[in-house]
């Protein structure tokens, strides 16, 4: 911009701003004359600032408390304006940034600076229960769309002065606030530096959700279907994360906060594991791993056994499966594909439909379609059981972002099983294992602490050990 510097004439500046903003109707301009005869222009965006505060803390103070003679801006800043966050803007860009972030701008004649007063006050959603990771016992609050609310939720849980926050603005148009939060001394400084560098280097016009940042930060973009940056809307999980020495990445306008680095086991843990008795939590964790394998492999194992390895089934089971398959026109693979795709459609429909009817429709749809398909001899009852258990198992995986790749892999394994039977499954599983062990999240092996095996980190990996020895500070995941 050629005219980046502010003019000493406030009228000129105002004209410039108005033309840059296209005389937007929500840009409110307020002209004030103080007791001394000094004229000020106040600028703010309607809906972005707390109007009550503007009235009480700025306009009222200026009118009542302004000194009798003309004063420079810094006197207004220091003595008159009744607000916590007041500062100077020296350029048009800066002025626009502050204006668009919900600040009140104060201009006066005779100086090439302006004042901004931070009185943001827009309508936001109140703190509600977590919708994606609910718990029976444990804190029920979740993040909202407001970044400051979110960082506060974490701060309230960890009252440590060594909490560090670093701010970034990402997105040339959206100028989204991104905040890194970590505990100094626990987190790996190199990692903080690395993430900061990457955030600074980002060239993108918009950041509307954490996923934009996640994709920009991922080192293995396009090489894996597994998520390598954990996201959650639970403040307790983020608090736990930074206490383990990890780095939380808050993105404005989204209730999902990212956590780096991320291990595979994180996706299999739920916040509730830490709020229930150890025995119960561990049993449930093991159940989740069982569900993971069921979700990924059940249909493919069924296909492999019934089309290639009938000799591996007990005779009675084989006979009952054979009886069910009588009159089914499709091969087992197509039958499974048909049902799984149907289920995925119903599931997607259930998510996109209005909340009130979503769940009912998807459940009823599955049962009705399943039952009708069996009655019409299009699929066998055994296949309906397999698809149903697969579907239920996929809901057990605590993190939605992990259940997605598992659901994809299910189809890949079904294909392998249809072509090569258990042999194909074995090959697929070996490739999957190699891939997972090869993955890294910010330099940490994705499958650690299992591969490579770290004895010290087993205290909270697949199982959770009792608390006193569970997480001594300093043996943090980030520091490796």
């Amino acid at each position, binding site marked *: 911009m050629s005219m980046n510097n502010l003019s000493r004439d406030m009228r000129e500046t105002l004209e410039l701003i108005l033309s840059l903003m296209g005389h937007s109707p929500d840009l409110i301009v307020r002209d004030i004359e103080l007791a001394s005869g000094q004229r000020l222009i106040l600028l703010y965006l309607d809906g972005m600032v707390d109007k009550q505060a503007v009235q009480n803390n700025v306009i009222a103070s200026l009118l009542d408390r302004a000194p009798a003679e003309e004063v420079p801006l810094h006197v207004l800043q220091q003595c008159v304006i009744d607000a916590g966050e007041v500062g100077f803007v020296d350029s048009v860009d800066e002025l626009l940034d502050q204006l668009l972030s919900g600040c009140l701008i104060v201009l006066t004649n005779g100086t090439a600076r302006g004042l901004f007063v931070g009185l943001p006050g827009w309508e936001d959603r109140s703190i509600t229960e977590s919708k994606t990771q609910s718990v029976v016992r444990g804190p029920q609050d979740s993040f909202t769309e407001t970044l400051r609310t979110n960082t506060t939720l974490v701060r309230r849980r960890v009252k440590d002065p060594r909490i560090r926050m670093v701010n970034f603005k990402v997105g040339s148009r959206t100028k989204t606030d991104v905040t890194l939060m970590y505990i100094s001394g626990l987190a790996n400084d190199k990692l903080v530096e690395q993430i900061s560098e990457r955030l600074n280097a980002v060239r993108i016009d918009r950041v509307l959700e954490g996923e934009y940042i996640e994709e920009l930060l991922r080192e293995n973009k396009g090489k894996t279907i597994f998520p390598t940056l954990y996201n959650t809307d639970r403040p307790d999980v983020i608090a736990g994360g930074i206490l383990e020495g990890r780095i939380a990445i808050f993105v404005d306008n989204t209730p999902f906060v990212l956590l780096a680095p991320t291990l595979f086991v994180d996706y299999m843990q739920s916040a509730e594991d830490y709020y229930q008795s150890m025995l119960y939590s561990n049993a449930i964790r093991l159940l989740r791993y069982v569900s993971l394998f069921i979700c990924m492999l059940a249909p493919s194992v069924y296909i492999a056994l019934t*089309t290639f390895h009938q000799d591996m089934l007990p005779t009675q089971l084989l006979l009952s499966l*054979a009886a069910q*398959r009588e009159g089914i026109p499709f091969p087992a693979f197509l039958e499974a594909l048909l049902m799984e795709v149907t289920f995925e459609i119903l599931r997607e429909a259930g998510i996109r439909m209005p909340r009130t009817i979503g769940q009912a429709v998807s459940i009823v749809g599955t049962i009705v379609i399943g039952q009708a398909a069996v009655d019409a001899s299009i699929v066998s009852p055994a296949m309906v059981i397999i698809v149903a258990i697969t579907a239920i198992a996929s809901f057990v995986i605590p993190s939605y972002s992990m259940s997605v790749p598992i659901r994809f892999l299910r189809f890949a394994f079904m294909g392998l099983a*249809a072509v090569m039977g258990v042999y194909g499954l074995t090959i697929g599983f070996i490739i999957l294992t190699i891939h997972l062990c090869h993955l890294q999240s910010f330099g940490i092996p994705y499958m650690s602490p299992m591969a490579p095996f770290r004895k010290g980190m087993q205290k909270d990996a697949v199982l959770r050990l009792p608390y006193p020895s569970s997480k001594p500070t300093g043996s943090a995941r980030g520091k490796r």
Partner: protein
Amino acid sequence: MRRMNGVRAIIAGLALVLLLTGCWNRRELNALSVVLAMGVDKVGEQYVVTLQIVDPTQMSHDRVAERSPVVTFTQRSATIFEALRKVTTKASRRMYVAHLRLLVFNEEAAREGINDIVDFVARDHEFRPDFYMAIAKGANAQDLLELTTPTEVLPAMELYKSLKVSQQAWAPTAAVNIVEFLQKTTKTGIEPVLTGVTVTGNLKKGKSLGNVSRPKSFAEFKYVGIGVMKDDRLIGWLNESESKAYNYITNNIRSTVGIIDCPGSDGKFNIEVIESKVKIVPSVRDGEPYALVKTSIEANLSEIGCNVDLTKEAEFLKLQAAASDRLKEILFDSIAKVQRQYGADIFGFGEAFHRKYPSQWHSWKQEWGKHFQAMPFEVAMDYKLRKIGKIINPFNNVKKE
């Protein structure tokens, strides 16, 4: 650019994977006929092969009552394999033999040797080597497999389970699977046995569904004793108590019943064997083999028809001694009979010598049959009666007051 090619290759590969679902030895369940039992009758120079297959529609809930749950196909041919393939001219599906439960030969086939048949069964990759083998005694394998049976819907399963249970609970049968048979038939120091099974009653009615429409079947099968084999040929049969002795000596007794004459009075009493352990202790006497059959038995009294007072230990011990003597007699006589009459070492004495005296064994190996026939042996008993049941004295002994 190179990575793009890789991705393309993977996508193309996956697409092909989906198209290729019809290849290799993939078979849908509804393209298979599950063969549960196979019968081989030797008639002249040819084999008559009978296959009992399941009609899968009859295994579901909505089955038609008039249809038989199994179908049998019979094919005459010079070899088993050819017969199996020829059957497809009569059936719509491929014969799937991995779930074979029972392989039955008729006596003629067994007497002439079953190596040809067993060779195919052991060689073919599809057979799962966990099925039982039996010899149809005085009957055709075909008749046996065409019988309808009352307890299980599938006759082959009934034959299979019945053999398994009878060996465990009653003992005079031998549930021999193919692996066991092959091991014994290829070793020098032990000979195989196969259990016998026969069909009694009105065969014509027994082969119809009417056989199971009333409480008492028109015809039924029955396992009868053990057939002694020499190599792959049947050479004779053991009766019931000899068959039981065979199971005692080969440690196949899980539980059985013994009937013993009362000591010092008329009547009989029964014991239930709960634990049986027999050890063959080989030794060499004057350069010749000599065997000690060490037997330790634990049993419970189960039925007493004697005039005894069980409150007295001496009388109880008398019963124990009688039971012990009776079993010793059975074991001794059975071994002696097998030695004398058949000369086939079905008990595995030779194996015991082989293990303990490998060097001597090599000089006996060639002529083991003769050595076995001449081998002196002894039976040592360690017999313990444990429990007498819920009542003490027999009712006819309780003094009326």
